[in-house]
């Protein structure tokens, strides 16, 4: 070591301090929002802060949360999936039709349903990466196609738009325990879906921040060309992310079909926007590269708390979409400002 080299070592352009950076995390806005909303409904209504009230909120939140987390991973990877909502119905229908029409064991039906979901996810992914069309358009196509198949096939086979009789299937009791059981705590009935949601959120968080694949997700959405130039398989990463949202749709579809023992062919329509809204409220950037699974979960919680809170407060439920729209716009604005401050205020 010579004096020259020592003196030549220069500190890099400083970033924001760790404290300031923590304050500019995109989840922060959603955490504050969640606390404010919880405090509001807890003080304004009698049911909200009770065991039953919490169980009610979490019931709505859990399935939305599972989807929001998967959609958040996909959005961080730079893509959208508009077919995810309809796919929750498709997967439920596959299971129900196999059980009802062919009399297979419910676990077999659930396995075929998973295979079906993975195929749809793979097709979405391969279409988006091969054609380089916006995923918004490609999955809109899948959305309509699935919607048509859901109703068309169901009508063909059952002459109605509903498939039932799932509870008569072999193995239903075990499936119910895994996907649709509930535990009573106080006077609230807590659904097992809540556990699934927590497991999905924790796994997704570990995947994002502690694995190689997580690193690739951020890079594929944040700067795909740069990622490709250092050897990240961007196309493969995105295909796997579409298969992840499809798998989440299968889980939610299965939870729903086992719990209700029947499926309507037209459920799930419009749900895809709720997943995206929850992910965005939780800090996901629409342009990719930024977001978190925890944020998406909090976004889902805000959705669930508000929807149930309005019921508890006995307000007119028609006002809920207005709140949702306002919340979405506010979240997008906050996210954009936060990210701009995080990365684009560099000198030179």
């Amino acid at each position, binding site marked *: 070591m010579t004096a020259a080299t020592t003196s*030549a070592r220069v500190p890099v*352009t400083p970033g924001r301090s760790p404290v300031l950076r923590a304050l500019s995390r995109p989840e922060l806005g959603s955490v504050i929002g969640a606390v404010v909303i919880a405090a509001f409904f807890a003080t304004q209504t009698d049911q909200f802060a009770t065991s039953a009230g919490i169980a009610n909120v979490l019931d709505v939140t859990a399935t939305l949360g599972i989807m929001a987390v998967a959609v958040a991973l996909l959005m961080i990877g730079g893509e959208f999936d508009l077919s995810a909502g309809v796919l929750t119905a498709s997967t439920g229908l596959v299971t129900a039709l196999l059980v009802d029409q062919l009399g297979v064991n419910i676990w077999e039906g659930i396995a075929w349903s998973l295979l079906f979901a993975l195929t749809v996810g793979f097709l979405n992914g391969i279409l988006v990466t091969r054609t380089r069309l916006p995923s918004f358009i490609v999955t809109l196509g899948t959305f309509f196609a699935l919607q048509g198949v859901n109703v068309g096939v169901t009508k063909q086979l059952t002459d109605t738009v509903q498939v039932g009789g799932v509870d008569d299937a072999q193995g239903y009791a075990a499936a119910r325990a895994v996907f649709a059981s509930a535990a009573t705590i106080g006077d609230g009935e807590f659904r097992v879906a809540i556990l699934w949601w927590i497991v999905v959120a924790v796994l997704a968080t570990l995947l994002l921040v502690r694995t190689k694949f997580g*690193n690739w997700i951020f890079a594929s959405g944040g700067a795909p060309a740069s990622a490709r130039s250092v*050897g*990240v398989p961007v196309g493969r990463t995105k295909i796997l992310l579409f298969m992840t949202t499809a798998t989440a749709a299968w889980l939610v579809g299965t939870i729903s079909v086992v719990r209700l023992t029947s499926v309507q062919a037209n459920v799930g329509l419009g749900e895809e926007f709720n997943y995206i809204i929850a992910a965005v409220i939780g800090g996901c950037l629409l342009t990719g590269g930024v977001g978190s699974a925890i944020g998406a979960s909090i976004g889902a919680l805000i959705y669930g708390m508000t929807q149930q809170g309005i019921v508890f407060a006995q307000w007119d439920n028609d006002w809920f979409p207005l709140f949702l729209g306002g919340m979405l716009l506010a979240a997008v604005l906050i996210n954009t400002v936060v990210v701009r401050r995080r990365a684009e205020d560099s000198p030179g």
Partner: protein
Amino acid sequence: MKPELHPIDDIQAALDGEGDNLPESDVPPHTPLLEVRGLGKRYGGVTALQGINATVNSGEVTCVLGDNGAGKSTLIKILSGVVSYDQGQYLVAGKRVKFSSPRQALDRGIATVFQDLAVVPLMSIWRNFFLGSEPTRGFWPFRRLDVEHAQDVTVAELARFGLDVQDPHQPVGTLSGGERQCVAIARAVYFGARVLILDEPTASLGVKQAGMVIRHVVQARERGLGVIFITHNPRHAYPVGDRFIMLNHGAMVANVTREDIDLNDLTQLMSGGADLDELAHEVQEHHRGPAGAWKPG
């Protein structure tokens, strides 16, 4: 041994006293690492590149100069594996290769730092440093990033290039342009690159930042890498270049060593010599003419 550097403006100041603390490479200096013979590429009916002959040696900087559209980026894309060639030969360590992805080039020790594509701005310094080659520990399904190791290596490797990183979690987007290039260069060197291709690394930078990048070019050379330095600025190329390859309209118009040429000739050659003379002549003509000739209309 340090080659003599020619004094050029501020860049010279930035070069002083650099490269002394870097270890020697396992490849002896001046060994051919990469060679192209009669290399060419056509896009549809358009010839983008033809008849390129060049050798890149270890411990040397090969500068590729040319104006916009001269074929520089096509050459780089072929060398780095982004596109394939359709004429001639491309040899790495004496063996013919035809890459179909940047990953294959990387595996053969050829790393490229693309202009503006060097890093992912929103990701942290350490995540960028290891992107695509992340260290992991544990067994599947518990295999996870070795975060501590990755952060330690990032800080240590950047320190060797003279950058003092306090917090490896800092997003790369908050670094200056020169520092970002440095992260990309240090990364390529750490992952065992034999050949480092730098695509216009100084193009959008100010004098001070450009000086910093050129200093890193020298450091990479001192570590025994063969550096290919693409630029359209002869003032950036001349202080560090051992060999200069000039492209014009997809063809190689010159391939000279530093001994054969000085900065003025290089600049002249670079800007298409004759054209520049003509321009200078025209400007003089205008000045000599009557003042009224300048009025529009």
